[in-house]
């Protein structure tokens, strides 16, 4: 590596400031800690919050995995991986179990994470009350007073108008019985993976300059009503066309030649690992390791 930058792009003082925000976030689960979001060589809104967390935490022994919409190969994931690798020389991987640091947009990997792994999520809108109340000064006071009427009201309004909650992703969750948090636009399917997880989850919003966290073994409860309980996306009777997995988050795709719809694992690394395992030992079986299997 030719050293054009300090290790991991940032100067050490910046890393320390970000780590301090992270520690505060971990200490107060779900609380949004303001931090001095830096200018990054990628545009705000393209994962700068997650990237800053990753860069401030990464060390020589780390193994990095970056996912975008479940895929290791999308442009955003590849570019972030390249930037981190170029400035640190750490090893990058696509295998979830090999990674120590996983930066992700929109998904939590299907394979449950271990206690020695850290998940970094990129967040566009960290404030769960933002559409209810546009003023930051007011939403901070609402958080301080634990007044989450606005978050419930949004869900109620969706039920009144559409008969069901319409949060495809980013369904608000109550963390540790205290703060309501936007879990970044992960599908509802992944919300429950945050509850009492073994791993640490860090969330970074670069444009909005906020860092927050869900420490391991923390209660995370999606908001819902007694008569309209929270539910995850269901893919009953559908399986991945490539690896045959059931009970995982599937993408619906259209075969343009035949016009047929088919389903495929959203988590590409998970799918590839299953196919590789099948070639070694051709025993077929549905995936039972996920929490929703």
């Amino acid at each position, binding site marked *: 590596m030719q050293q054009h930058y300090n290790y991991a792009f940032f100067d050490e003082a910046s890393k320390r400031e970000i780590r301090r925000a992270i520690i505060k976030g971990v200490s107060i689960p779900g609380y949004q800690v303001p931090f001095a979001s830096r200018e990054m060589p990628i545009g705000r809104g393209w994962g700068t919050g997650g990237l800053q967390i990753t860069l401030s935490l990464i060390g020589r022994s780390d193994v990095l995995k970056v996912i975008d919409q479940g895929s290791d190969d999308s442009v955003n994931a590849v570019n972030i991986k390249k930037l981190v690798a170029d400035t640190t020389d750490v090893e990058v991987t696509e295998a979830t179990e090999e990674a120590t640091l996983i930066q992700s947009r929109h998904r939590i990997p299907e394979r449950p994470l271990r206690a020695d792994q850290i998940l970094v999520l990129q967040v566009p809108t960290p404030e769960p009350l933002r559409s209810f109340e546009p003023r930051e000064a007011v939403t901070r*006071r609402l958080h301080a*007073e634990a007044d989450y*009427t606005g978050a*419930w*009201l949004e869900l*109620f309004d969706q039920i*009144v108008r559409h008969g069901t909650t319409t949060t495809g992703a980013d369904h608000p969750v109550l963390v540790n019985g205290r703060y309501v948090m936007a879990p970044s636009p992960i599908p509802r399917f992944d919300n429950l993976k945050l509850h009492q997880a073994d791993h640490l989850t860090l969330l970074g919003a670069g444009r909005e300059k906020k860092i927050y966290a869900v420490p391991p073994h923390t209660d995370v409860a999606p908001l819902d009503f007694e008569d309209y309980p929270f539910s995850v996306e269901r893919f009953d009777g559908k399986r991945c066309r490539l690896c045959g997995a059931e009970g995982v988050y599937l993408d619906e795709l259209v075969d343009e030649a035949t016009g047929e719809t088919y389903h495929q694992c959203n988590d590409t690394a998970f799918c590839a690992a299953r196919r590789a395992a099948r070639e070694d030992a051709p025993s077929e079986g549905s995936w039972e390791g996920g929490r929703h299997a």
Partner: protein
Amino acid sequence: MLDEQRFGADETPCLSVRHLSKRFGAGCSHCLEPGAQLNRNVCPRCGTVHAVRDVSLEVFPGEIVGVVGESGSGKSTFMKCLFFDEEATEGEVRALPYDGGAANLLDLSPQQRRAVRNTVFGMVYQNPYLGLRMDFSSLSNIAEQMIAAGSRSVGVMRGRGEELLTRVNIPLTRAAEPPRNFSGGMQQRVQIAKALSNNPPILLLDEVTTGLDLSVQAAVLDLIQQIRRDFNVSMLVVSHDLGVIRMLADRTLVMLDGRVIESGLTDQILEDPQHAYTQQLVYSLL
């Protein structure tokens, strides 16, 4: 005189306000004197605006008390202080339904104030934009205070919302529509339904009919009368319209430059006004 001596056991005021003042500005040695001469309600030395000066009143269960006065007389600021939209500078507010009237509501923590706003008071603003969330459906608007008070059942809140919308004559086919789509009179009626959601014992009505045409005004006033009769709600009605006050209020206070200059039975005030300003006000009634 102590309250116990003045009123019988069943005649304790529902809401009692003592010496409430609201100043915008720090005040100085000149204007903080009890009998200070002000330029209307502005201190000539330090420029402090004395929006509400030493207002005391009582509202008894099931009673409607009116507050009249011209624009800028401090009546809306007074209402906002009661509903915690503005921070009162000094004074005491006690509400019987909250804790038997033990605590001064102005000393409560923000959480306790929220509880008071959600369970004791219902507020209807002159401008529906202040009282309603225009982008949320009408049912959601009514549900807001129920959610704040801890309800987590969509069925119960929808049922209550539809009951109230029927009560204020909004067709249920429009219940899921946001008030933004409604006419001014309909918005005002949704606001009244919202204020009633948690069955508050005290309603604060701030210029509820201003800006509505006459037939709609009549419908809204009729609705308020019905609510008083059916739910035995106490009300504090602020208006600059003496017609509204004459129709609704049992007792009336007249405010000028932040002070109460005259108070008594509504009929008395309208038929035999004592203060020069009240006389002018009554005689200018068309």
